[in-house]
């Protein structure tokens, strides 16, 4: 059942990869982009403190002159699984700070690490980045439900980005992509210690002289392993049994303690 789920999820991701990149891929460029990662799975063990992921890639069919002039730029993003996210705003009511207003954004990545050859705002015009949703500042944040006259949209979006960047789950590294030979490049992205579990997507974008040329995407699974995975599974798949086990563990611990430290 679980294996089946995984296949379905991968299938969905694959489908979204194609639909996500097809919209702006012009036909008249000769360049192609290829990327590869050393692993398609990151295991979260009990001592997990984050990980660095290195992505290798190559530009095929490049123009020698343009490459020599440094006209090619690459952006690599690691997008976490998408979830609806709610931003809440506190206000003072009778002297107490209370959540008063909220806005929910539809399916935003839970984590986002961006790495590029230089600051992405110098790679392509902001409008293009907005269209493709590349970068923390350009990511699509679509509010759900009623948001009144929309005047607070910008402030909630800013707050969302600020919170995500401050907590380290959204990060950017404007020097993280380096060319290691004429057309081969290496990108490193950081996975924070509290990286969400699930299917992440590595997306790479190639720009030539401020124009988007090609994109490529690969899935990356982040999974809990060993005992962590067994515990999570038990908690979600047989919660009643898990609850009984938690109680049993407490009873045994308390009981053993009362024997070991018995004084009367």
């Amino acid at each position, binding site marked *: 059942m679980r294996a089946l789920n995984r296949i379905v999820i991968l299938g969905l991701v694959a489908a979204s990869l194609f639909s996500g990149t097809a919209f702006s891929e012009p036909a008249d460029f000769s360049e192609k982009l290829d990327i590869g990662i050393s692993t398609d799975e990151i295991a*979260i*063990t*009990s*001592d*997990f*403190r984050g990980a660095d992921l290195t992505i290798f890639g190559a530009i095929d069919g490049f123009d020698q002159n343009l490459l020599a002039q440094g006209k090619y730029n690459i952006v690599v993003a690691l997008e976490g699984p998408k*979830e*609806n*996210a*709610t*931003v*809440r*705003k*506190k*206000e*003072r009511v009778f*002297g*107490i*700070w*209370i*959540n008063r207003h*909220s806005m929910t954004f539809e399916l935003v990545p*839970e984590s986002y690490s961006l790495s590029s050859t230089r600051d992405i705002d110098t790679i392509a015009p902001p409008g293009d980045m907005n269209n493709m949703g590349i970068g923390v500042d350009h990511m699509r944040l679509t509010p759900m439900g009623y948001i009144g006259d929309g005047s607070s949209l910008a402030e*909630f979006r800013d*707050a*969302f980005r*600020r*919170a*995500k960047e*401050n907590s380290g789950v959204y990060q950017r590294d404007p020097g993280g992509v380096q060319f290691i030979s004429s057309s081969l490049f290496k990108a490193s992205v950081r996975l924070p*210690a*509290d990286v*969400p*579990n699930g299917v992440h997507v590595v997306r790479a974008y190639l720009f030539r002289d401020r124009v988007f040329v090609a994109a490529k995407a690969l899935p990356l699974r982040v999974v*809990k392993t060993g*005992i*962590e*995975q067994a*515990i*999570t599974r038990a*908690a*979600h798949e047989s*919660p*009643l049994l*898990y*609850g*009984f*086990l*938690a*109680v049993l*563990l*407490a*009873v045994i*611990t*308390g*009981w053993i*303690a*009362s024997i070991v*430290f018995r004084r*009367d």
Partner: protein
Amino acid sequence: MTVYLPIAELSVNIFIILGMGAAVGFLSGMFGVGGGFLITPLLIFYNIPPVVAVATGANQVVASSISGAITHFRRGTIDIKLGTVLLCGGLAGATLGVWIFSFLRRIGQLDLVISLMYVLLLGTVGTLMLIESISALRKASKNQAVALRKPGQHNWVHRLPLKMRFKKSKIYLSVIPVAALGFSIGILTSVMGVGGGFIMVPAMIYLLRIPTNVVVGTSLFQIIFVSAYTVIVQASANYSVDIVLAFVLMIAGVIGAQYGVRVGQRLRGEQLRALLALLVLAVGLRLAVELVIPPKEVYSVVSAGLGF
């Protein structure tokens, strides 16, 4: 050394968790309380999602109450009949509590309500205990007898119908206030992750006039079952019991409790109560300050997962 908490989904320093467990265990051993009212706020201060902190706190309460209950059972100081009536109310209260908990979580006011309830409860109980213990200390210094229970004195509670005879406690009492007390404590257990002993014990002594010798054992009896029930229901409804976190807390807690008991035995009852009152007030104050001072960031972000 860090340890990954699979349900809270974050890495924590194991020594901080061990330290928390040991410190709370020490205090709970010293004062004879479950320690849920300390462990849950501490976990929240340490950035554990409140949802996980409450459910896991209830699990820790089970472990820390068991050894006390076993001792009382051996000595025969548990009134099972009275405990069962309390428990019936408690289970109903805990069921309602979990429902309230899920509802508050959905509308985004869970953290606020948990904090407010702690401030209110700890503030009230702490103040009452402090007043009572100071006057007891004064009387003790004047060599007057300290009487917790004034026999023969009746209040409105004893005029209620549906009376039942509790042989062990040697009282004839209506089941209504007993079940109602259990019910209220049950709600607190599932919403706040506390055992509720620090409210139940005074209520049983002062309100229901139950003899002091059976009060602690009987309240522990009720606390164990209601907390265990809460853990199971929280695990089923919110998937929020972190067994790794709970286990680390328990181990440190039961060991810390042993040392706490030794220190506690050297202090006099009213001194202990005064110290406990100060501790309760301090935790309440810390939470109250959090509510009143302007937050550094007025915005907070939650995903569809545990943050709710």
